[in-house]
């Protein structure tokens, strides 16, 4: 065996060894298991209502909470306040196909569960996450009753909220552009 052949054989052996090692590289196994209690803070509510907390809220109660916590930005009549950036929450039905569409909870939002989820996590703007679950149910009820989506005597809870048929429920479809 020439010196070159020896070197080549050696190189092949090394290469083979490396190829074997490459088939099962070490992977990290990091992170620590999280308890159900810890996971409770990550509540996100899909349209089915899965994960909605216990509790209930009525329109009248929601009106009082709205006046105290929401009206400064969204207006006394849920009409929106331009200066604060607080959007209108009601109105606009029938405008979506017009030259000047008005997109509100009443006219545009397809799922009532989204209102609960969003208010619970991100509102009021100056103190997000500060409303109790009952208060969130109540404010959601007030907004929807003001938009004539549910009656004034409606009570919202984990069963009734996902069943609300929003006016624009059928208004969305998947982006049709080529994938």
């Amino acid at each position: 065996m020439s010196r070159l052949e020896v070197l080549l054989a050696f190189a092949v052996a090394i290469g083979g060894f490396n190829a074997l090692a490459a088939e099962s590289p070490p992977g990290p196994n990091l992170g620590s298991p999280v308890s159900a209690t810890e996971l409770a803070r990550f509540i996100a509510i899909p349209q089915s209502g899965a994960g909605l907390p216990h509790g209930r809220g009525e329109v009248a109660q929601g009106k009082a909470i709205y006046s105290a916590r929401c009206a400064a930005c969204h207006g006394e009549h849920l009409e929106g306040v331009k200066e604060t950036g607080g959007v209108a929450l009601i109105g606009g039905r029938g405008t979506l196909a017009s030259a000047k569409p008005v997109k509100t909870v009443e006219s545009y939002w397809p799922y009532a569960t989204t209102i609960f989820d969003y208010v619970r996590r991100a509102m009021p703007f100056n103190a997000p996450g500060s409303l109790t679950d009952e208060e969130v149910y109540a404010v959601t009820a007030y907004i929807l009753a003001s938009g004539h989506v549910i009656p004034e005597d409606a009570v919202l809870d984990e069963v009734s909220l996902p069943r609300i048929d929003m006016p624009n429920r059928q208004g969305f479809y998947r982006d049709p552009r080529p994938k």
Partner: protein
Amino acid sequence: MSSAEDCDCKEGMFPRKPLSRRGLLFAAGSTAGAIAAGLPGRASAENTPPPGAALYEVATDPTKEPGRAIGLDGGYGTRSQFETAVRIVPSGSNPYTTFSLTPLASLVGNITPSGLHYERHHAGVPTIDPARHSLVVHGLVETAKRFTMEDIKRMPSVTRKHFIECSGNTNSEWAGPKGKTVQFTHGLLSTSEWTGVHFSIFARQVGLKAEGLWVLAEGSDGAVMTRSIPIEKVLRDALIAYGQNGEALRPEQGYPLRLVLPGYEGNTHIKWLQSLQVSDVPFMSREETSKYTDLMPDGRAWQFVFEMDAKSVITFPSGEMRLPGPGYYEIRGLAWAGRGRVARVEVSTDGGRTWTLAELEGTPEPICTVRFKLPWLWDGKPATLLSRCQDETGYIQPTREKLVAERGLNAYYHYNGIQSWSVAADGSVANVAA
């Protein structure tokens, strides 16, 4: 769009008043950026340094005395006191939910300096201690886990250059030319080198269940912002990123951890990332129903409009500049594509009658901007400059008319029409239809 000024759906995405018209001069050493931003120009630079700069005495002849000592900057450098380009924030908007625009006309090369990366926040910029920050991966997984920043930095890392573009970028142009400058019309676009860990590395450590089809990403800002992302996307190329342009993410870009979803609309790249929840369905969060959906003429809306289609814009010459006279110029711009590489860019100097292939600077990277250039001898007569981009899928950047014919005037998001700039006989450049 006609309803742009009074429609609440704009929610901070549109200035209440158009940016005031201020002349931009094209001349060496001009203080164009400062003028555009309403900052003190050179005349008052003795008193106040531009943002990101420190003031030093200017030597009469820098070859006749030593410069300043090393280390006076405390160990982290500043830019020259003569450089004044800044992000601008539209006036009259809520400062916690508005956006800031990258000064594209002032940039060179392909990377956006971290301090000039565009911003869009939904509840301001949180200040987060990385020692107390973690990412929880849970939902339809075998073992829900919490990963500390230390854990994440131990994992196999990758570094990729990608642009991020807000889906609202250029939405001023749906109803026709409106934005005065390229910063205003296209400044919700920035490119960084991102460093982080592929989502697939996390997936192996928690064990994905087969029924998991979506992942809800959640930020730890005051909006606790959420977006549902298809699992095939996050498994293909999602980065859990902690690095930007060679250092840690800037707070405005999600420090200490953000999601990077190459080619997807900017708002899906959740900043200050704290949770990834695997699910069988999308969550229909506020940001994927009431916002970031594209209203069509029939009153229905596109939903989950993720990819940012191919687009380009000429950054020089561009709106509110003034060419000093006929002669040689290098037309320069940026092209980008959310579905792959930029394949080619063509430039027209005659309003779209004839097109010339522009030179691309280097080999375009996947889902990244690339700079294009074309030498131009201006004869001093009125000219109209356009650029159009084609990506590697064969898709060609459309005209505004084509977009409007397909989507109407109220889609608001995902405008990628061909941009035109007119050059008048006096050299002034303006945003006009070709």
